């Protein structure tokens, strides 16, 4: 049974006709990447300035932390369907875009806020003592120190966006998830498995690409010595739940 599914999926993926056209893999992949990229950008534009500002002035902590917890309790599927049935549903991709942004903002907000808040206070005070202004302090001290958590937030948000874009297919949206739902609709196990493999690969590639980006952009590259501070070192290897009592980084897998 299971072996049949694998060979079937392999055959499905090897059939050129399945890659071409409006319902083909390339078109669906394009939709998926376009929606994910657009929504990740929108989420960054919303969450980054807000989190940096809140972290810098040290207010709104409860909001920034709890927004992730609330986000985890709300089913993505429900939000997608509710938006599709609302008047917005008549406007093409808008329900999907709004849902994607809604679920990408919380991990970004929480991680970036905590990153700025947990930047070493002594260093921040020293920089202030050296006469740095607020924006200078943020740009030259707090953001570099918060960098690992900022990247963790970005990675969680990206994984979340790719996963949510997959679910958009359940509510009639485009993207690679459509291949899976169409497969379920036709009782075509080979197509279901092939679609799932493509989606899983995309998610892993996105995650991997962001890990590489993280390494390449690290402002402290090669400059961290000795035991790392809490919230700066291990978090890189620990995406979903670094702290035991407080889940810093992520929403739910979707």
């Amino acid at each position, binding site marked *: *049974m*299971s072996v*049949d*599914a694998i060979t079937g999926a392999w055959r499905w993926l090897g059939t050129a006709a399945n890659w071409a056209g409006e319902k083909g893999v390339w078109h669906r992949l394009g939709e998926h990447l376009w929606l994910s990229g657009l929504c990740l950008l929108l989420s960054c534009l919303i969450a980054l300035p807000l989190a940096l500002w809140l972290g810098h002035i040290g207010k709104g902590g409860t909001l920034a932390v709890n927004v992730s*917890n609330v986000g*985890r*309790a*709300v*089913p*993505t*599927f*429900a*939000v997608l*369907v*509710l938006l*599709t*049935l609302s008047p917005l549903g008549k406007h093409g991709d808008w329900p999907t875009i709004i849902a994607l942004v809604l679920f990408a903002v919380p991990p970004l907000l929480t991680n970036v806020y905590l990153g700025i808040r947990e930047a070493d206070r002594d260093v921040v005070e020293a920089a202030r003592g050296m006469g740095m202004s607020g924006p200078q302090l943020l740009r030259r001290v707090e953001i570099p120190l918060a960098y690992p958590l900022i990247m963790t937030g970005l990675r969680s948000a990206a*994984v979340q966006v*790719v*996963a949510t874009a*997959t*679910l958009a*297919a*359940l*509510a*009639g949206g485009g993207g690679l*998830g459509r291949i*899976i*739902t169409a*497969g*379920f609709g036709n009782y075509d*196990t080979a197509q*279901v*498995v092939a*679609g*799932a*493999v493509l*989606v*899983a690969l995309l*998610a*892993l590639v996105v*995650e991997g690409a962001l890990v590489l980006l993280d390494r390449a952009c690290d402002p402290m590259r090669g400059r961290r010595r000795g035991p790392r501070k809490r919230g700066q070192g291990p978090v890189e*290897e*620990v*995406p*979903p*739940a670094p*702290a*035991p*009592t*407080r*889940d810093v980084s992520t929403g*739910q*897998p*979707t």
Partner: protein
Amino acid sequence: MEAPVRAAEMLTGSQFMAQGGGPGCLERNDWICGEYLRTRSQELLDATLQHVGITVVSVLLGLLVAFPLALLARHRRGVAGPVLGLTTVLYTVPSLAMFALLTPVFGVSPSVVVTGLVLYSLTILVRNILAGLDGVPAEVREAARGMGYGPARLLFEVELPLALPALVAGVRIATVSTVAMTTIGSVVGYGGLGNLIASGMEGFFKAEVLTASVLCVVLALVADLLLLGLQRLLTPWTRAGSGGRRVRRGAAVAKAVG
């Protein structure tokens, strides 16, 4: 699971009064409809029970698998990397793909949904159990060994109680995300309230979608509160004195060893 159903009924009921969606709200396809609640209460109850059942089984199985994995990772550091890496990779796979990949293995059955949810819960549970056990102060372990505690007794009578707050925190996160993700199980027909959301979408039935969605969130919140209560009950020492939520090492140590 009477309570959440009733709470949601009260909630939607009061909004229903405010909006005056009297009889005929089903025909008008209102978002909030008391008539829907009355006529489909059995359907709602069945879906809620399925939802709760899938969640509870998944989290319990997740704990059963995560606990030995965490112990193994703790005793063999070489195993820790691969275990944590693998669970992180699993966490990255979107749920729709996960359920789709499991379908040929189990056929269209609740096992697909439960297995997928167990795999997701592992990431959080293994990490939190490990973090909890790592957080046990070395002196406490030494003291217990000095008092003649064997490895098993040390684990179950000293380390586990001290790791409990971190463990329960993990279970809470896993449970809340599991409640939300169970809805995706509707692709194989076992999604609890997700089934109602899916059928409501197909039939453009607004009241069905909104009621099921609200019930989902209520379920997650109720589960979270119940687990928080359980943790308070199981770890009374964390509240001793002015400590609040932070574990006060001194009090915890005295209680656990003494």
